[in-house]
């Protein structure tokens, strides 16, 4: 599904190399977690994959189901099936959540040459998805993320994911700022979306999210590279001993 080869990335405005040769393959149907200390390049990886400005790829490539991602505009990547759940979802006053989602869903459908959803079809779909995430109608009417609590914002991200039905989902520290109950709700939303033709890349500092979203593979990232790859036990090891020991082992 997602294939990253020798990816080198620097900041556009500064001579600062952030990713220094990332190799990563996430097959369809799997959930991969990326853990790592602050500043290791986890969030940068998610931004570069989804096409945010401000980064320059100096070497390497990234593709989604064989299609090269790096030359695409962010909206083209979205239409190709990529989704990034933001660590800090953005507030957009004056734009209704519902309007925003309908615009996004139909823009993607249009870009893929599919028929756009009618108002009625869209309403039916969103009500159904919102219910499972315990998002009430009031929250759908409010402006995008404005006045939402941390938990509501993250649930809203998962609702968008459920509506857009991406094939490759990247979750950037979705657990940050969530209490235990909110985290469970978000994890349930993610788990409900797990399927043989969809893959997840879960970026997190902590192991606790991975108790709820069980990963197939865990990667440890440090200083712009994947330095260790293993099973779920790797996350437990981080939880118990911190990154220090692990990184020392790698050298």
């Amino acid at each position, binding site marked *: 599904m997602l294939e990253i080869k020798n990816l080198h990335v620097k900041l556009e405005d500064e001579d600062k190399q952030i990713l220094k040769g990332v190799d990563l393959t996430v097959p369809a149907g799997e959930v991969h977690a990326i853990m790592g200390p602050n500043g290791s390049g986890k969030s940068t990886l998610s931004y570069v994959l*989804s*096409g*945010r*400005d401000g980064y320059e790829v100096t070497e390497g490539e990234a593709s989604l189901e064989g299609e090269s991602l790096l030359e695409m*505009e*962010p*909206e083209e*990547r*979205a*239409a190709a099936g990529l*989704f*990034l759940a*933001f660590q800090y*979802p*953005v507030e*957009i*006053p*004056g*734009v209704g959540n519902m309007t*925003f989602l309908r*615009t*996004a*869903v139909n*823009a*993607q459908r249009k*870009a893929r040459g599919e028929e756009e959803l009618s108002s009625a079809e869209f309403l039916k779909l969103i009500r159904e998805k919102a219910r499972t995430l315990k998002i009430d109608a009031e929250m759908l009417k409010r*402006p995008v993320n404005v006045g939402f609590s941390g938990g509501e914002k993250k649930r809203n991200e998962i609702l*968008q994911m459920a509506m*857009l039905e991406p094939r490759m989902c990247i979750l950037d520290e979705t657990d940050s700022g969530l209490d235990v109950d909110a985290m469970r709700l978000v994890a349930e939303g993610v788990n409900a979306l797990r399927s043989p033709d969809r893959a997840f890349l879960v970026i997190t500092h902590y192991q606790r999210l991975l108790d709820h979203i069980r990963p197939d593979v865990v990667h440890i990232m440090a200083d712009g590279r994947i330095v260790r790859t293993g099973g779920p036990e790797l996350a437990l090891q981080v939880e118990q001993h911190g990154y220090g020991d692990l990184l020392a082992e790698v050298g």
Partner: protein
Amino acid sequence: MADTAVLAAQVPAVEGKARPGDTALAARLDALDLPRGGFTRPAREDAAQRLQAMGLPGARDEYWRYTDPAAFNAARPQPVDLAADTSTLFTGIDRLNIVFVDGRFDAAASDALEAEGVEIESLAAAEARADHWAAGLYGRLEAAGQVPVKRPFATLNTLAAAEGVLIRVTGKLDRPVHITYRRSAADADVHLHHVVKLEEGAELTLLETGSIGARSNVVIEADLGQGARFHHISAKRANDPKLGLGHIFARVAAEALFKSFTLTVNGLMMRNEAVIDIAGDDAVAHIAAAVLGDGDIGRFHHDDTVFITHAAERCESRQVFKKVLKNGAEGVFQGKILVKPGAQKTDGYQISQGLLLDEGSQFLAKPELEIYADDVKCSHGSTTGALDETALFYLRSRGVPKERAIVLLVLSFLADALDEIEDQRLRDDILGRLEDWLTARAGNPGKAGSGGA
């Protein structure tokens, strides 16, 4: 043909040394066909004297520091082509239509000027009546609004406007009065003077749309009685290469509500002044504007100059001004809140924001607070910035194409101003026009090539 009797009134004021600008004023007046006036005659004579005393504004005038008055000082406007009239604003709403063509009342195109609880007349038709209710108002609020800042073009309007609408409301008008301006002449230089009087508890919504002239000077005097409610929405024709001056003078009595919203979608050179006197306790006055300026049809310059006086207790005022500027467009905001001694528990708020879509555009803001009461709440804020890159990326990452994302973010920026329109049908109509205009232009880089990534 100039009216000699009115002009004669100017003579005493120009005795003695000639000042710079006197020639310009003389030429300005000479180019106008000054009306004799009927019941407004004393007000016109008074205006002639006042205008002679104050002269036309110059670039050195503090109040004209950010806007060059030259185009308004010129004796005649440059002829300009008419923008295509695609406006369908408010047409789906039941309303009382009043049509002006090149500044002249068009009775055939207008509805019958009759409705329960209201008297409506054209100014020219009413002039002949003696003891008119508007006699005590025409030019009066304008004259009162000349302190502490001179507004010569409003005075010129009182002197020169042959037409306008006089509306006196005693009841609650169930449908809006809609003034539609049409233009047929390329060089129409139009003065219109509207007088609105709302008696105690009366309600009126006044709408203005269309294209007034190549150059226009419109004054609205609005006198709100106790508990009256006045909603004013102005949305002139988009992309009209016009020079426009507007003044609204309002006196707001106790418990009355005044709300004015102006939409400007492109144009050339515009200045709107609002002078609002909150005279009675527990009154509310809101004034808002949404401005979209694109320099693609010529240098865009839009000035909002507001002066709100709190002279009573427990009153609320709110100024919300938002300007989206592109292709070298200039936006100006001069907004003042004056809280007089004794105007305790005043709640004054003012926000002015510029959204610059390229580096060649600019937004100039001069917020002012002057407070002489000790128990008041007054706040003001002003910001100038570019589109929020994070928000833009957020929308695009959800699959919303860049052009569409920019439209959504511009609407988001304007939302607070649009929210000042209470009537949802009117707000939806305005929003629809904005969205259509923005969408039609989305991705159009314009002259400065600002649409690139």
